[in-house]
């Protein structure tokens, strides 16, 4: 007995002696965090979605599919996401373009990101009070306004980075070869800024389809996004269907990401900021 304990003692002391602070050691806390807050919830989600009364089943899926209102919410969310993204490009591109031309552009970009430091709930609530004060009825329009307002910095930033990184000699060469300002923009600047647009789209479209708080504050009673729907399912303790919807959501995120990456040839990550 005594020797055994002694042996264990030696083993432990050896372990402690052999412990070195290598680079991988610093990754442990992050790995732990990842396990606890990303991997575990995903597993729970899968269990919730596919286990009904301790058996493997697709009942939750069929429940989701047969309820017409769910599919309707999904298409509505995708539509809202598309409109928001389109508006963000339409408004954000000219701003990013003008800012990239100015030498003081970086400072002004900062002004555009500044509201991001205010908690988005506070921002959204204030927007709602503003609408109430002016007397605008909440609905799809106010919802889209809120979404664009919240997500436009995510469009401007990657666009501004891409546009200001375009070598000046390209536009000079175009001009030298006979292109006026308009042709230079459409034939050179715009094509070269597409990676920026794509990373902007990834940063706007995916978060919009999954958002829920903004629609609750600004959407009125009629407009109701997929994110809200999921939230409500969980509130009513319908974990099964809620999980299924979350998985569908996740699938959309992955699909969108895949297409972005494919059309961008892996440049998105480089051009994000």
């Amino acid at each position, binding site marked *: 007995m005594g020797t055994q304990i002694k042996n264990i003692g030696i083993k432990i002391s050896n372990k402690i002696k052999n412990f070195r602070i290598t680079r991988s050691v610093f990754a442990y806390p992050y790995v732990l965090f990842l396990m606890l807050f990303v991997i575990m919830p995903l597993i729970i989600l899968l269990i919730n979605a596919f286990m009904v009364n301790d058996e493997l089943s697709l009942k939750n899926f069929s429940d989701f599919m047969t309820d017409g209102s769910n599919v309707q919410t999904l298409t509505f969310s995708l539509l809202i996401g598309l409109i928001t993204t389109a508006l963000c490009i339409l408004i954000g591109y000219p701003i990013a373009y003008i800012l990239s031309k100015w030498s003081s552009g970086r400072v002004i970009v900062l002004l555009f990101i500044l509201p991001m430091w205010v908690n988005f709930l506070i921002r959204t609530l204030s927007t709602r009070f503003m609408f109430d004060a002016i007397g605008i009825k909440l609905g799809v329009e106010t919802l889209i306004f809120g979404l664009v307002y919240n997500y436009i910095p995510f469009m401007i930033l990657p666009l501004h980075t891409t546009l200001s990184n375009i070598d000046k*000699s*390209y536009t*000079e*060469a175009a001009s*030298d*070869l006979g*292109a006026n300002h308009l042709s230079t923009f459409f034939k050179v600047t715009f094509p*070269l800024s597409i990676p920026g647009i794509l990373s902007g789209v990834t940063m706007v479209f995916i978060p919009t389809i999954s958002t829920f708080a903004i629609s609750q504050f600004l959407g009125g009673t009629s407009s109701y996004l997929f994110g809200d729907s999921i939230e409500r399912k969980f509130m009513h303790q319908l974990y099964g269907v809620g999980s299924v919807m979350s998985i569908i959501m996740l699938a959309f995120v992955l699909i969108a990401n895949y297409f972005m990456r494919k059309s961008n040839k892996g440049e998105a990550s480089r051009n994000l900021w």
Partner: protein
Amino acid sequence: MATDKIIELKNICKSYDEKPVVKNVSLAIKKGEFVTLLGPSGCGKTTTLRMIAGFEKPTSGSVFISGKDMTTSPPYARNVNTVFQNYALFPHLNVYNNIAFGLKFKTVSDGTFFTDKNGVKYQNLRKLTKSEISEKVKIALKMVDLEEYEKRNVSSLSGGQKQRVAIARSLVNEPDVLLLDEPLGALDLKMRKDMQLELMNMHKTLGITFVYVTHDQEEALTMSDTIVVMKDGVIQQIGSPQKVYDEPANAFVADFIGESNIFSGIMISDFKVEFCDHIFECVDKGFKHREPIDVIIRPEDVRICKGDVGMLTAIVNSCVFKGDHFQITVIITGGEEYEMLIHDNIECKAGETVGLNILPYDLHIMHKARIINEIKTEMWDENIVEISGGKFPCNCDFPSGTKVIVSIDFDDVIIHDDENNGIIGGEVVNSIYKGNYYQCFIRTDDYYDFFVDTEDDWLKGDRVGISVNPDKIMIRKLDEDIDGNTN
């Protein structure tokens, strides 16, 4: 006459944030000429080229292209094309579309005419058709030997191929003038030599005017009809390669183009010059009596004869075989010691005593740019004078605020390695070896160039400190009537 000159620059000045880059440049380029703008980096050559292309607007002065004032015209309205230093090929287009880019904007006469209300006849214009564009692109690709590369992505090309595409992209537009901004800078030596020959051939066959910017004097001498030597935004000399080489206008040109020996000397009388403690015959006249001058001797113009039977006696310091000649450095003796660089085909041994002969017409005599540093300024206080923002102690009791002219000899300026040890700081902009000392130009922060004679070679671009012994500062009151020469 106007048609003869394809480009004319008239008193062009350009400043960035008050800092002058190009100073009063006037230049006429004849049709079909191969002109090279040559100078060290930062001399304003690229800026000058960019003003011809239209990327920069001159601060003052005007640019004429084919006799028309194009000073404010945008680049796309000028019939000149540029080959950029970094090629600037559009990364989103393939080789074919890069070359076709300019052609898509081009218009040609469609053979019909249009007469307006005033009876002026105009040609009706149309765009080039697809097949015309394709044909032109094919010819351009053939010209640069890249026929098979139409569909290639530009990022997959080598440096030399990118260069060819860039040249084809410019030439396909049939410009009046082709501007080339250090186009061969990024290529390796072998490729550069090949491209030099190809460019010269293209120039010959196409008859287009070439304006070429480079800092490589060898490239300029090989390729050009005319060389424009620039320094600090000022044209130093315009001339044929032979002329610039054989008769440099000043010490800078001589030092920059080819190797040369530069000595300070004095003109004794017409046809007689003294330097290296000897008197030589020369072919120059018309200088003032005992005027200080610079003498420039090309290394290949000095002849060595064994034994001390030459005009000068020297001891060989080193002798290196260079293929077609020996590069020999000698120390001239008999008085102060001066170093001289010689190219000759006689092999010498280090330590050997030799005689040197120089023919009168191989001595190039030049006025000195400046014989003393002279600055117009005012007294800060009694015994303190302000120079370039620094307070220099001096022996002069003029009251504060007196306008004065300060003179300081070249060898009285003291250079400090650490900027903080000097009274003012400055940047070394040039350093020329003059046989047994260096002449450095130190530029202060308010753009006054101090000429300094020093024993040491200071590195160009370094920051140094400047101070002057109070006894060596000569001050005289500025007479308002006399227009003092300050710069």
